Protein backbone atom coordinates (compact mmCIF):
# COMPACT_ATOMS: atom_id res chain seq x y z
CA UNK A 1 0.00 0.00 0.00
CA UNK A 2 1.38 3.34 -1.00
CA UNK A 3 1.55 5.73 1.90
CA UNK A 4 0.42 8.99 0.39
CA UNK A 5 0.09 11.59 3.16
CA UNK A 6 -3.23 13.40 3.09
CA UNK A 7 -3.24 15.15 6.46
CA UNK A 8 -0.04 16.42 7.94
CA UNK A 9 0.09 18.06 11.35
CA UNK A 10 3.28 19.38 12.87
CA UNK A 11 3.48 20.94 16.31
CA UNK A 12 -0.15 22.03 16.41
CA UNK A 13 -0.95 24.30 19.35
CA UNK A 14 -4.36 25.72 20.22
CA UNK A 15 -4.85 27.92 23.23
CA UNK A 16 -7.99 29.55 24.59
CA UNK A 17 -6.47 32.24 26.77
CA UNK A 18 -4.47 30.37 29.41
CA UNK A 19 -6.07 27.04 28.62
CA UNK A 20 -4.13 24.80 26.23
CA UNK A 21 -6.60 22.62 24.33
CA UNK A 22 -4.12 21.07 21.89
CA UNK A 23 -0.57 20.82 23.07
CA UNK A 24 2.07 20.23 20.41
CA UNK A 25 0.25 17.66 18.27
CA UNK A 26 2.16 16.03 15.42
CA UNK A 27 0.81 13.22 13.26
CA UNK A 28 0.15 12.15 9.69
CA UNK A 29 -2.86 10.50 8.12
CA UNK A 30 -2.50 8.37 4.99
CA UNK A 31 -4.82 8.29 2.06
CA UNK A 32 -7.58 5.69 2.26
CA UNK A 33 -7.07 4.71 5.88
CA UNK A 34 -9.47 4.83 8.79
CA UNK A 35 -7.81 6.99 11.37
CA UNK A 36 -9.22 6.81 14.87
CA UNK A 37 -8.89 9.82 17.12
CA UNK A 38 -9.47 8.61 20.66
CA UNK A 39 -9.72 10.29 23.98
CA UNK A 40 -12.00 10.98 26.91
CA UNK A 41 -14.48 13.84 26.72
CA UNK A 42 -12.61 17.11 27.04
CA UNK A 43 -9.30 15.66 25.88
CA UNK A 44 -9.20 18.10 22.94
CA UNK A 45 -10.55 15.90 20.13
CA UNK A 46 -13.25 18.28 18.96
CA UNK A 47 -10.91 21.26 19.04
CA UNK A 48 -8.46 19.45 16.78
CA UNK A 49 -11.13 18.29 14.36
CA UNK A 50 -12.48 21.84 14.10
CA UNK A 51 -9.04 23.09 13.15
CA UNK A 52 -8.61 20.39 10.51
CA UNK A 53 -12.04 21.29 9.04
CA UNK A 54 -11.21 24.96 8.85
CA UNK A 55 -13.78 25.92 11.49
CA UNK A 56 -11.15 27.19 13.86
CA UNK A 57 -7.71 28.74 13.43
CA UNK A 58 -4.76 27.13 15.20
CA UNK A 59 -2.56 29.19 17.51
CA UNK A 60 0.61 27.78 15.95
CA UNK A 61 1.95 24.76 14.07
CA UNK A 62 2.12 23.63 10.48
CA UNK A 63 -1.03 21.93 9.23
CA UNK A 64 -1.97 20.78 5.77
CA UNK A 65 -5.21 19.03 4.88
CA UNK A 66 -5.68 17.44 1.43
CA UNK A 67 -2.64 19.40 0.36
CA UNK A 68 -3.94 22.77 1.51
CA UNK A 69 -2.78 25.06 4.28
CA UNK A 70 -5.09 25.33 7.31
CA UNK A 71 -4.36 29.04 7.77
CA UNK A 72 -4.71 30.46 4.30
CA UNK A 73 -6.58 27.93 2.21
CA UNK A 74 -9.52 26.98 4.43
CA UNK A 75 -11.99 27.39 1.60
CA UNK A 76 -10.04 24.95 -0.61
CA UNK A 77 -9.94 22.53 2.30
CA UNK A 78 -13.72 22.78 2.69
CA UNK A 79 -14.23 21.75 -0.93
CA UNK A 80 -12.29 18.57 -0.29
CA UNK A 81 -13.68 17.39 3.00
CA UNK A 82 -16.94 16.09 4.37
CA UNK A 83 -18.05 16.51 7.97
CA UNK A 84 -20.58 14.87 10.19
CA UNK A 85 -21.06 16.03 13.76
CA UNK A 86 -22.55 14.29 16.75
CA UNK A 87 -25.73 16.31 16.20
CA UNK A 88 -26.37 14.83 12.69
CA UNK A 89 -27.03 18.25 11.16
CA UNK A 90 -30.09 17.45 9.08
CA UNK A 91 -33.01 19.84 8.77
CA UNK A 92 -35.77 18.23 10.78
CA UNK A 93 -38.52 19.95 8.82
CA UNK A 94 -37.23 18.98 5.36
CA UNK A 95 -37.63 15.63 3.60
CA UNK A 96 -34.71 13.30 2.92
CA UNK A 97 -34.53 14.38 -0.73
CA UNK A 98 -34.71 18.05 0.18
CA UNK A 99 -31.82 17.66 2.59
CA UNK A 100 -29.75 16.02 -0.13
CA UNK A 101 -30.67 18.73 -2.60
CA UNK A 102 -29.75 21.52 -0.22
CA UNK A 103 -26.41 20.14 0.89
CA UNK A 104 -25.50 19.05 -2.62
CA UNK A 105 -26.39 22.54 -3.78
CA UNK A 106 -24.18 24.36 -1.36
CA UNK A 107 -21.26 22.17 -2.40
CA UNK A 108 -21.85 23.32 -5.95
CA UNK A 109 -23.15 20.05 -7.44
CA UNK A 110 -25.45 20.54 -10.41
CA UNK A 111 -28.99 19.23 -10.63
CA UNK A 112 -28.03 16.04 -12.46
CA UNK A 113 -25.22 15.25 -10.07
CA UNK A 114 -27.50 15.79 -7.09
CA UNK A 115 -30.16 13.49 -8.50
CA UNK A 116 -27.66 10.75 -9.36
CA UNK A 117 -25.90 10.94 -6.02
CA UNK A 118 -29.16 10.97 -4.06
CA UNK A 119 -30.38 7.92 -5.92
CA UNK A 120 -27.12 6.07 -5.52
CA UNK A 121 -26.73 6.80 -1.81
CA UNK A 122 -30.35 6.03 -0.95
CA UNK A 123 -30.09 2.73 -2.83
CA UNK A 124 -27.10 1.81 -0.79
CA UNK A 125 -29.00 2.56 2.42
CA UNK A 126 -32.11 0.87 1.02
CA UNK A 127 -34.14 3.97 1.82
CA UNK A 128 -35.44 4.77 -1.68
CA UNK A 129 -39.03 4.37 -0.53
CA UNK A 130 -38.60 6.80 2.31
CA UNK A 131 -37.14 9.58 0.24
CA UNK A 132 -40.09 11.95 0.77
CA UNK A 133 -40.32 11.42 4.51
CA UNK A 134 -39.74 14.38 6.80
CA UNK A 135 -36.58 13.94 8.87
CA UNK A 136 -38.34 14.51 12.19
CA UNK A 137 -40.45 11.40 11.53
CA UNK A 138 -37.65 8.89 10.91
CA UNK A 139 -35.67 6.81 13.44
CA UNK A 140 -32.35 7.99 14.84
CA UNK A 141 -30.40 5.21 13.11
CA UNK A 142 -31.59 6.37 9.70
CA UNK A 143 -30.74 9.96 10.50
CA UNK A 144 -27.21 8.94 11.35
CA UNK A 145 -26.70 7.05 8.09
CA UNK A 146 -28.27 9.86 6.11
CA UNK A 147 -26.06 12.44 7.76
CA UNK A 148 -23.07 10.32 6.80
CA UNK A 149 -24.25 9.94 3.22
CA UNK A 150 -24.70 13.69 2.96
CA UNK A 151 -21.20 14.23 4.31
CA UNK A 152 -19.72 12.14 1.46
CA UNK A 153 -22.16 13.29 -1.22
CA UNK A 154 -19.66 15.54 -2.97
CA UNK A 155 -16.96 12.82 -3.05
CA UNK A 156 -14.58 14.49 -0.62
CA UNK A 157 -11.00 13.27 -0.18
CA UNK A 158 -11.43 13.07 3.58
CA UNK A 159 -14.48 12.70 5.75
CA UNK A 160 -14.39 13.84 9.37
CA UNK A 161 -16.74 12.07 11.76
CA UNK A 162 -17.08 13.66 15.18
CA UNK A 163 -18.53 11.10 17.62
CA UNK A 164 -20.76 9.72 14.88
CA UNK A 165 -22.23 6.88 16.95
CA UNK A 166 -23.32 8.77 20.05
CA UNK A 167 -26.69 7.59 21.35
CA UNK A 168 -27.14 4.82 18.79
CA UNK A 169 -27.79 1.14 19.63
CA UNK A 170 -25.03 -1.49 19.10
CA UNK A 171 -26.61 -3.09 16.01
CA UNK A 172 -26.97 0.22 14.22
CA UNK A 173 -23.41 1.03 15.23
CA UNK A 174 -22.16 -2.14 13.59
CA UNK A 175 -24.07 -1.32 10.39
CA UNK A 176 -22.67 2.17 10.49
CA UNK A 177 -19.12 0.87 10.64
CA UNK A 178 -19.82 -1.27 7.59
CA UNK A 179 -20.67 1.96 5.78
CA UNK A 180 -17.39 3.44 6.94
CA UNK A 181 -15.45 0.46 5.59
CA UNK A 182 -17.14 0.72 2.23
CA UNK A 183 -16.30 4.39 2.06
CA UNK A 184 -12.66 3.78 2.92
CA UNK A 185 -12.52 1.13 0.18
CA UNK A 186 -13.55 3.77 -2.34
CA UNK A 187 -10.41 5.67 -1.37
CA UNK A 188 -11.97 8.26 0.90
CA UNK A 189 -9.93 8.80 4.02
CA UNK A 190 -11.98 8.52 7.20
CA UNK A 191 -10.99 10.53 10.24
CA UNK A 192 -13.14 9.49 13.17
CA UNK A 193 -13.29 10.57 16.81
CA UNK A 194 -14.91 8.34 19.37
CA UNK A 195 -14.78 7.40 22.99
CA UNK A 196 -16.07 3.87 22.41
CA UNK A 197 -12.94 1.75 22.69
CA UNK A 198 -14.47 -1.24 20.90
CA UNK A 199 -14.82 0.96 17.81
CA UNK A 200 -11.12 1.67 17.95
CA UNK A 201 -10.50 -1.96 16.99
CA UNK A 202 -12.04 -1.25 13.57
CA UNK A 203 -9.55 1.51 12.74
CA UNK A 204 -6.38 1.09 10.73
CA UNK A 205 -4.50 3.29 13.12
CA UNK A 206 -5.48 5.10 16.27
CA UNK A 207 -4.10 7.99 18.24
CA UNK A 208 -4.94 8.39 21.90
CA UNK A 209 -5.22 11.84 23.37
CA UNK A 210 -5.05 12.78 27.04
CA UNK A 211 -5.21 16.35 28.28
CA UNK A 212 -4.48 17.89 24.89
CA UNK A 213 -1.52 15.65 24.08
CA UNK A 214 -1.18 12.58 21.87
CA UNK A 215 0.32 9.89 24.08
CA UNK A 216 0.13 6.95 21.69
CA UNK A 217 -0.24 6.45 17.93
CA UNK A 218 -0.13 3.08 16.19
CA UNK A 219 -2.31 0.32 14.78
CA UNK A 220 -4.60 -1.34 17.33
CA UNK A 221 -2.65 -4.58 16.98
CA UNK A 222 0.71 -2.96 17.70
CA UNK A 223 -0.72 -0.97 20.60
CA UNK A 224 -2.14 -4.12 22.19
CA UNK A 225 1.22 -5.84 21.83
CA UNK A 226 3.12 -2.88 23.18
CA UNK A 227 0.98 -2.60 26.28
CA UNK A 228 0.33 -6.32 26.60
CA UNK A 229 -3.43 -5.83 26.58
CA UNK A 230 -6.24 -7.99 25.29
CA UNK A 231 -8.39 -5.12 24.08
CA UNK A 232 -8.11 -1.48 23.21
CA UNK A 233 -10.10 -0.76 26.34
CA UNK A 234 -7.27 -2.15 28.40
CA UNK A 235 -4.73 -0.18 26.43
CA UNK A 236 -6.66 2.98 27.11
CA UNK A 237 -6.99 2.25 30.81
CA UNK A 238 -3.28 1.52 31.14
CA UNK A 239 -2.39 4.70 29.32
CA UNK A 240 -4.68 6.99 31.23
CA UNK A 241 -3.77 5.58 34.64
CA UNK A 242 -0.23 6.74 34.34
Amino acid at each position, binding site marked *: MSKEIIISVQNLMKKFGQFVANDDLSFEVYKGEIFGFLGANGAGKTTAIKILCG*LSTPTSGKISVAGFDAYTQT*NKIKHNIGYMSQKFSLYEDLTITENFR*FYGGIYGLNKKQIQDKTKQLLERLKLEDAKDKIISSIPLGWKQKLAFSIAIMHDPKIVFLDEPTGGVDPITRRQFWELIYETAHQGITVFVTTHYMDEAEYCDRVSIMVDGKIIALNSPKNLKNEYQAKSMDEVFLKLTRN
Partner: protein
Amino acid sequence: MNTILHILHKEFIQIFRNKTMLPIIFMLPIVQLLVLVYAATFEMKNINMVVVDQDLSSKSRALVAKFEASPFFKIQQNTFSVKEAESIIKSDKADFILNIPSGFELGVLKENTGNIQLLINAINGTTAGLTNVYATSVIADFNRELIIESINILPPAIQQVINVEYSFWYNARMNYKIYMLPGILVILVTLIGMFLTSLNLVREKEMGTIEQINVSPIKKYQFIIGKLFPFLCIALFELAFGLIIGKLVFNIPLVGSLPLLFLFAAVYLLVALGIGLLVSTLSSTQQQVMFVSFFVMLVFIMMSGIFTPTESMPDWAQKVNIINPVAYFMEVIRMILLKGSGFMDIWKSFVLLFIYAVGIISLAIWKYRKVA
Protein backbone atom coordinates in the same frame (compact mmCIF):
# COMPACT_ATOMS: atom_id res chain seq x y z
CA MET B 1 -25.47 32.36 -7.64
CA ASN B 2 -26.57 28.76 -7.80
CA THR B 3 -25.60 28.31 -4.19
CA ILE B 4 -27.80 31.22 -3.15
CA LEU B 5 -30.71 29.72 -5.08
CA HIS B 6 -30.30 26.48 -3.17
CA ILE B 7 -30.47 28.31 0.15
CA LEU B 8 -33.53 30.26 -0.98
CA HIS B 9 -35.24 27.08 -2.12
CA LYS B 10 -34.65 25.49 1.25
CA GLU B 11 -35.80 28.52 3.24
CA PHE B 12 -39.04 28.82 1.30
CA ILE B 13 -39.84 25.12 1.77
CA GLN B 14 -39.26 25.51 5.49
CA ILE B 15 -41.42 28.61 5.76
CA PHE B 16 -44.36 27.17 3.85
CA ARG B 17 -44.18 23.82 5.57
CA ASN B 18 -44.56 25.33 9.02
CA LYS B 19 -48.30 25.17 9.48
CA THR B 20 -48.39 26.90 12.85
CA MET B 21 -46.29 29.85 11.74
CA LEU B 22 -48.06 30.53 8.44
CA PRO B 23 -51.25 31.95 9.93
CA ILE B 24 -49.20 33.93 12.42
CA ILE B 25 -47.12 35.39 9.63
CA PHE B 26 -49.93 36.17 7.24
CA MET B 27 -53.22 36.38 9.11
CA LEU B 28 -52.33 37.98 12.41
CA PRO B 29 -50.93 41.20 10.91
CA ILE B 30 -53.87 41.64 8.57
CA VAL B 31 -56.44 41.13 11.31
CA GLN B 32 -54.56 43.58 13.49
CA LEU B 33 -54.42 46.11 10.70
CA LEU B 34 -58.17 45.84 10.16
CA VAL B 35 -58.99 46.25 13.83
CA LEU B 36 -56.35 48.59 15.15
CA VAL B 37 -56.65 51.30 12.54
CA TYR B 38 -60.10 52.03 13.95
CA ALA B 39 -58.67 52.33 17.44
CA ALA B 40 -56.04 54.91 16.61
CA THR B 41 -58.03 58.08 16.71
CA PHE B 42 -57.83 61.33 18.58
CA GLU B 43 -61.19 62.46 17.21
CA MET B 44 -63.32 63.36 20.16
CA LYS B 45 -66.89 62.29 20.11
CA ASN B 46 -69.23 61.52 22.96
CA ILE B 47 -67.43 63.14 25.83
CA ASN B 48 -69.41 61.80 28.74
CA MET B 49 -70.66 64.63 30.92
CA VAL B 50 -72.60 65.14 34.11
CA VAL B 51 -74.85 68.16 34.48
CA VAL B 52 -75.34 69.77 37.85
CA ASP B 53 -78.07 72.32 37.25
CA GLN B 54 -78.72 74.04 40.55
CA ASP B 55 -80.46 76.97 38.92
CA LEU B 56 -83.22 75.11 37.06
CA SER B 57 -84.10 78.23 35.12
CA SER B 58 -84.97 78.65 31.46
CA LYS B 59 -81.50 80.07 30.78
CA SER B 60 -79.73 77.19 32.48
CA ARG B 61 -81.87 74.71 30.60
CA ALA B 62 -81.08 76.48 27.36
CA LEU B 63 -77.37 76.16 28.10
CA VAL B 64 -77.72 72.47 28.89
CA ALA B 65 -79.67 72.01 25.66
CA LYS B 66 -76.77 73.59 23.78
CA PHE B 67 -74.44 70.96 25.18
CA GLU B 68 -76.93 68.26 24.39
CA ALA B 69 -77.06 69.39 20.79
CA SER B 70 -73.29 69.42 20.37
CA PRO B 71 -71.86 66.33 18.66
CA PHE B 72 -68.98 66.31 21.12
CA PHE B 73 -70.93 65.83 24.33
CA LYS B 74 -73.16 63.18 25.69
CA ILE B 75 -75.03 63.80 28.92
CA GLN B 76 -74.73 60.74 31.09
CA GLN B 77 -76.49 61.90 34.17
CA ASN B 78 -78.18 64.85 35.85
CA THR B 79 -77.68 65.48 39.50
CA PHE B 80 -78.03 68.31 41.99
CA SER B 81 -74.92 67.79 44.02
CA VAL B 82 -71.38 68.50 42.89
CA LYS B 83 -70.18 65.87 45.34
CA GLU B 84 -72.23 63.22 43.64
CA ALA B 85 -71.03 64.39 40.23
CA GLU B 86 -67.42 64.13 41.37
CA SER B 87 -67.96 60.59 42.55
CA ILE B 88 -69.31 59.78 39.09
CA ILE B 89 -66.03 61.04 37.66
CA LYS B 90 -64.16 59.01 40.22
CA SER B 91 -65.90 55.88 39.06
CA ASP B 92 -64.95 56.74 35.49
CA LYS B 93 -68.49 56.99 34.14
CA ALA B 94 -67.96 60.56 32.97
CA ASP B 95 -65.06 62.93 32.35
CA PHE B 96 -66.66 66.33 32.51
CA ILE B 97 -68.97 68.16 34.90
CA LEU B 98 -70.96 71.24 33.94
CA ASN B 99 -71.91 72.96 37.16
CA ILE B 100 -74.51 75.74 36.93
CA PRO B 101 -74.88 77.30 40.39
CA SER B 102 -78.17 78.75 41.53
CA GLY B 103 -78.54 82.41 40.67
CA PHE B 104 -77.15 81.89 37.18
CA GLU B 105 -80.18 83.33 35.35
CA LEU B 106 -80.50 86.15 37.80
CA GLY B 107 -76.89 87.10 37.24
CA VAL B 108 -77.28 87.04 33.49
CA LEU B 109 -80.38 89.19 33.52
CA LYS B 110 -79.40 91.66 36.23
CA GLU B 111 -75.65 91.99 36.06
CA ASN B 112 -74.92 90.67 32.58
CA THR B 113 -72.61 88.03 34.00
CA GLY B 114 -73.31 84.40 34.72
CA ASN B 115 -70.84 82.17 36.44
CA ILE B 116 -70.58 78.52 35.63
CA GLN B 117 -68.01 75.92 36.50
CA LEU B 118 -66.39 73.31 34.28
CA LEU B 119 -64.74 70.38 36.02
CA ILE B 120 -62.69 68.21 33.72
CA ASN B 121 -61.02 64.89 34.45
CA ALA B 122 -57.50 65.81 33.37
CA ILE B 123 -55.65 62.56 33.86
CA ASN B 124 -55.33 62.46 30.10
CA GLY B 125 -54.00 65.97 29.55
CA THR B 126 -54.57 65.96 25.80
CA THR B 127 -58.23 65.04 25.88
CA ALA B 128 -58.83 67.33 28.84
CA GLY B 129 -57.43 70.24 26.83
CA LEU B 130 -59.70 69.41 23.91
CA THR B 131 -62.73 68.99 26.17
CA ASN B 132 -62.07 72.46 27.51
CA VAL B 133 -61.80 73.93 24.01
CA TYR B 134 -65.04 72.33 22.86
CA ALA B 135 -66.92 73.32 26.01
CA THR B 136 -65.70 76.89 25.79
CA SER B 137 -66.83 77.14 22.20
CA VAL B 138 -70.30 75.85 23.07
CA ILE B 139 -70.49 78.47 25.79
CA ALA B 140 -69.25 81.22 23.47
CA ASP B 141 -71.98 80.27 21.02
CA PHE B 142 -74.55 80.43 23.76
CA ASN B 143 -73.20 83.80 24.83
CA ARG B 144 -73.55 85.21 21.32
CA GLU B 145 -77.16 84.05 21.14
CA LEU B 146 -77.90 85.68 24.45
CA ILE B 147 -76.51 88.96 23.19
CA ILE B 148 -78.56 88.83 20.03
CA GLU B 149 -81.63 87.84 21.97
CA SER B 150 -81.36 90.54 24.60
CA ILE B 151 -80.34 93.49 22.47
CA ASN B 152 -82.07 92.12 19.46
CA ILE B 153 -79.52 93.81 17.30
CA LEU B 154 -76.11 92.75 16.11
CA PRO B 155 -73.21 93.91 18.21
CA PRO B 156 -71.63 97.09 16.88
CA ALA B 157 -69.56 96.39 13.81
CA ILE B 158 -65.90 95.96 14.48
CA GLN B 159 -63.89 98.25 12.29
CA GLN B 160 -61.07 96.00 11.19
CA VAL B 161 -61.34 92.27 10.63
CA ILE B 162 -58.75 89.82 9.48
CA ASN B 163 -60.56 86.97 7.80
CA VAL B 164 -58.89 83.63 8.18
CA GLU B 165 -59.73 81.16 5.49
CA TYR B 166 -58.34 77.71 5.76
CA SER B 167 -58.13 74.52 3.80
CA PHE B 168 -56.84 71.06 4.54
CA TRP B 169 -54.78 69.58 1.78
CA TYR B 170 -54.38 65.90 1.00
CA ASN B 171 -57.07 64.95 3.48
CA ALA B 172 -59.97 67.36 3.27
CA ARG B 173 -62.25 65.18 5.37
CA MET B 174 -59.68 65.03 8.15
CA ASN B 175 -59.69 61.27 8.16
CA TYR B 176 -57.16 60.19 10.73
CA LYS B 177 -57.26 56.58 9.59
CA ILE B 178 -55.47 57.20 6.33
CA TYR B 179 -52.59 58.56 8.37
CA MET B 180 -52.51 55.74 10.90
CA LEU B 181 -52.87 52.86 8.48
CA PRO B 182 -49.47 53.29 6.84
CA GLY B 183 -47.93 53.74 10.29
CA ILE B 184 -49.39 50.56 11.73
CA LEU B 185 -48.57 48.71 8.53
CA VAL B 186 -44.91 49.73 8.78
CA ILE B 187 -44.74 48.33 12.31
CA LEU B 188 -46.40 45.06 11.46
CA VAL B 189 -44.22 44.50 8.40
CA THR B 190 -41.08 45.36 10.34
CA LEU B 191 -41.92 43.13 13.29
CA ILE B 192 -42.64 40.15 11.08
CA GLY B 193 -39.60 40.61 8.85
CA MET B 194 -37.10 41.37 11.56
CA PHE B 195 -38.13 38.63 13.95
CA LEU B 196 -38.38 35.94 11.32
CA THR B 197 -34.90 36.79 10.08
CA SER B 198 -33.23 36.98 13.44
CA LEU B 199 -34.87 33.86 14.82
CA ASN B 200 -34.11 31.86 11.70
CA LEU B 201 -30.35 32.15 11.90
CA VAL B 202 -30.09 31.55 15.61
CA ARG B 203 -32.37 28.53 15.24
CA GLU B 204 -29.82 26.95 12.94
CA LYS B 205 -27.27 27.60 15.64
CA GLU B 206 -29.41 25.98 18.33
CA MET B 207 -30.20 22.98 16.12
CA GLY B 208 -26.58 22.53 15.12
CA THR B 209 -27.23 22.63 11.38
CA ILE B 210 -25.09 25.73 11.13
CA GLU B 211 -21.97 23.63 11.72
CA GLN B 212 -22.70 21.56 8.67
CA ILE B 213 -22.99 24.75 6.64
CA ASN B 214 -19.83 26.19 8.13
CA VAL B 215 -17.70 23.25 7.00
CA SER B 216 -19.00 23.63 3.46
CA PRO B 217 -17.24 25.93 0.99
CA ILE B 218 -20.21 28.32 0.95
CA LYS B 219 -19.24 31.99 1.14
CA LYS B 220 -20.40 34.18 4.02
CA TYR B 221 -22.11 36.67 1.75
CA GLN B 222 -23.97 33.91 -0.09
CA PHE B 223 -25.27 32.59 3.18
CA ILE B 224 -26.36 35.99 4.52
CA ILE B 225 -28.10 36.90 1.26
CA GLY B 226 -29.83 33.54 1.26
CA LYS B 227 -31.05 34.29 4.76
CA LEU B 228 -32.22 37.84 4.00
CA PHE B 229 -34.01 37.45 0.73
CA PRO B 230 -36.90 35.13 1.70
CA PHE B 231 -37.96 37.37 4.56
CA LEU B 232 -37.59 40.46 2.41
CA CYS B 233 -40.06 38.86 0.01
CA ILE B 234 -42.49 38.00 2.79
CA ALA B 235 -42.31 41.49 4.26
CA LEU B 236 -42.83 43.14 0.86
CA PHE B 237 -45.71 40.81 0.16
CA GLU B 238 -47.35 41.79 3.45
CA LEU B 239 -46.82 45.44 2.65
CA ALA B 240 -48.63 44.94 -0.65
CA PHE B 241 -51.38 42.98 1.04
CA GLY B 242 -51.79 45.66 3.69
CA LEU B 243 -51.99 48.39 1.06
CA ILE B 244 -54.69 46.50 -0.82
CA ILE B 245 -56.69 46.22 2.41
CA GLY B 246 -56.06 49.89 3.04
CA LYS B 247 -57.38 50.75 -0.39
CA LEU B 248 -60.40 48.46 -0.27
CA VAL B 249 -61.47 48.90 3.34
CA PHE B 250 -60.21 52.30 4.35
CA ASN B 251 -59.97 53.87 0.92
CA ILE B 252 -56.55 55.32 1.64
CA PRO B 253 -55.29 57.43 -1.24
CA LEU B 254 -52.41 55.93 -3.17
CA VAL B 255 -51.28 59.21 -4.68
CA GLY B 256 -47.60 58.59 -5.28
CA SER B 257 -45.70 56.07 -7.30
CA LEU B 258 -46.05 52.52 -5.98
CA PRO B 259 -42.80 51.28 -7.58
CA LEU B 260 -40.98 54.07 -5.76
CA LEU B 261 -42.66 53.07 -2.51
CA PHE B 262 -41.65 49.44 -2.92
CA LEU B 263 -38.11 50.35 -3.88
CA PHE B 264 -37.83 52.45 -0.76
CA ALA B 265 -39.51 49.73 1.31
CA ALA B 266 -37.01 47.17 0.05
CA VAL B 267 -34.07 49.31 1.10
CA TYR B 268 -35.69 50.00 4.45
CA LEU B 269 -36.38 46.32 5.03
CA LEU B 270 -32.77 45.48 4.24
CA VAL B 271 -31.80 47.71 7.13
CA ALA B 272 -34.42 46.25 9.48
CA LEU B 273 -33.68 42.65 8.55
CA GLY B 274 -29.96 43.41 8.62
CA ILE B 275 -30.32 44.55 12.22
CA GLY B 276 -32.14 41.31 12.93
CA LEU B 277 -29.32 39.29 11.37
CA LEU B 278 -26.68 41.25 13.22
CA VAL B 279 -28.43 40.61 16.52
CA SER B 280 -28.65 36.91 15.76
CA THR B 281 -25.01 36.59 14.73
CA LEU B 282 -24.15 38.01 18.15
CA SER B 283 -26.48 35.76 20.14
CA SER B 284 -26.52 32.06 20.82
CA THR B 285 -30.13 31.39 21.83
CA GLN B 286 -33.52 32.37 20.47
CA GLN B 287 -34.38 33.86 23.81
CA GLN B 288 -31.47 36.29 23.68
CA VAL B 289 -32.22 37.25 20.10
CA MET B 290 -35.78 38.00 20.83
CA PHE B 291 -35.18 40.11 23.89
CA VAL B 292 -32.55 42.20 22.15
CA SER B 293 -34.65 42.68 19.02
CA PHE B 294 -37.72 43.37 21.12
CA PHE B 295 -35.89 46.10 22.97
CA VAL B 296 -34.45 47.68 19.85
CA MET B 297 -37.79 47.54 18.03
CA LEU B 298 -39.86 48.95 20.86
CA VAL B 299 -37.53 51.93 21.24
CA PHE B 300 -37.38 52.48 17.47
CA ILE B 301 -41.17 52.29 17.11
CA MET B 302 -41.90 54.64 19.96
CA MET B 303 -39.43 57.19 18.63
CA SER B 304 -40.45 56.82 15.00
CA GLY B 305 -43.23 59.38 15.11
CA ILE B 306 -46.01 56.90 14.52
CA PHE B 307 -48.37 58.64 16.94
CA THR B 308 -46.80 62.04 17.41
CA PRO B 309 -44.85 64.43 15.17
CA THR B 310 -41.08 63.94 15.34
CA GLU B 311 -40.25 67.62 15.13
CA SER B 312 -41.79 68.19 18.56
CA MET B 313 -39.23 65.85 20.07
CA PRO B 314 -36.24 67.31 21.88
CA ASP B 315 -33.04 67.83 19.89
CA TRP B 316 -31.20 64.84 21.31
CA ALA B 317 -34.09 62.57 20.40
CA GLN B 318 -34.08 63.86 16.84
CA LYS B 319 -30.37 63.10 16.69
CA VAL B 320 -31.03 59.58 17.93
CA ASN B 321 -33.57 59.23 15.17
CA ILE B 322 -30.80 59.55 12.60
CA ILE B 323 -30.04 55.90 13.32
CA ASN B 324 -33.70 54.91 13.57
CA PRO B 325 -34.69 53.30 10.26
CA VAL B 326 -38.35 53.13 11.30
CA ALA B 327 -38.49 56.92 11.52
CA TYR B 328 -37.31 57.26 7.90
CA PHE B 329 -39.82 54.83 6.50
CA MET B 330 -42.64 56.12 8.70
CA GLU B 331 -42.16 59.55 7.16
CA VAL B 332 -41.57 58.48 3.59
CA ILE B 333 -44.44 55.99 3.27
CA ARG B 334 -46.87 58.69 4.36
CA MET B 335 -45.30 61.23 2.00
CA ILE B 336 -45.50 58.95 -1.00
CA LEU B 337 -48.94 57.51 -0.31
CA LEU B 338 -50.78 60.57 0.88
CA LYS B 339 -49.02 63.45 -0.83
CA GLY B 340 -47.52 61.88 -3.88
CA SER B 341 -43.95 62.87 -3.10
CA GLY B 342 -41.54 61.82 -5.81
CA PHE B 343 -37.94 60.59 -5.79
CA MET B 344 -36.60 64.14 -5.76
CA ASP B 345 -38.47 64.76 -2.50
CA ILE B 346 -37.21 61.71 -0.66
CA TRP B 347 -33.78 61.12 -2.18
CA LYS B 348 -31.96 62.19 0.96
CA SER B 349 -33.71 59.59 3.10
CA PHE B 350 -33.22 57.07 0.34
CA VAL B 351 -29.47 57.62 0.12
CA LEU B 352 -29.05 57.58 3.90
CA LEU B 353 -31.01 54.37 4.28
CA PHE B 354 -29.11 52.81 1.40
CA ILE B 355 -25.78 53.54 3.05
CA TYR B 356 -27.25 52.26 6.31
CA ALA B 357 -28.34 49.02 4.62
CA VAL B 358 -24.92 48.43 3.07
CA GLY B 359 -23.24 49.19 6.39
CA ILE B 360 -25.44 47.00 8.56
CA ILE B 361 -25.35 44.02 6.19
CA SER B 362 -21.59 44.24 5.80
CA LEU B 363 -21.34 44.32 9.57
CA ALA B 364 -23.60 41.27 9.82
CA ILE B 365 -21.51 39.42 7.23
CA TRP B 366 -18.33 40.39 9.02
CA LYS B 367 -19.68 39.41 12.43
CA TYR B 368 -21.05 36.12 11.18
CA ARG B 369 -18.14 33.81 11.85
CA LYS B 370 -17.78 30.61 10.01
CA VAL B 371 -14.81 30.15 12.25
CA ALA B 372 -15.64 29.37 15.86
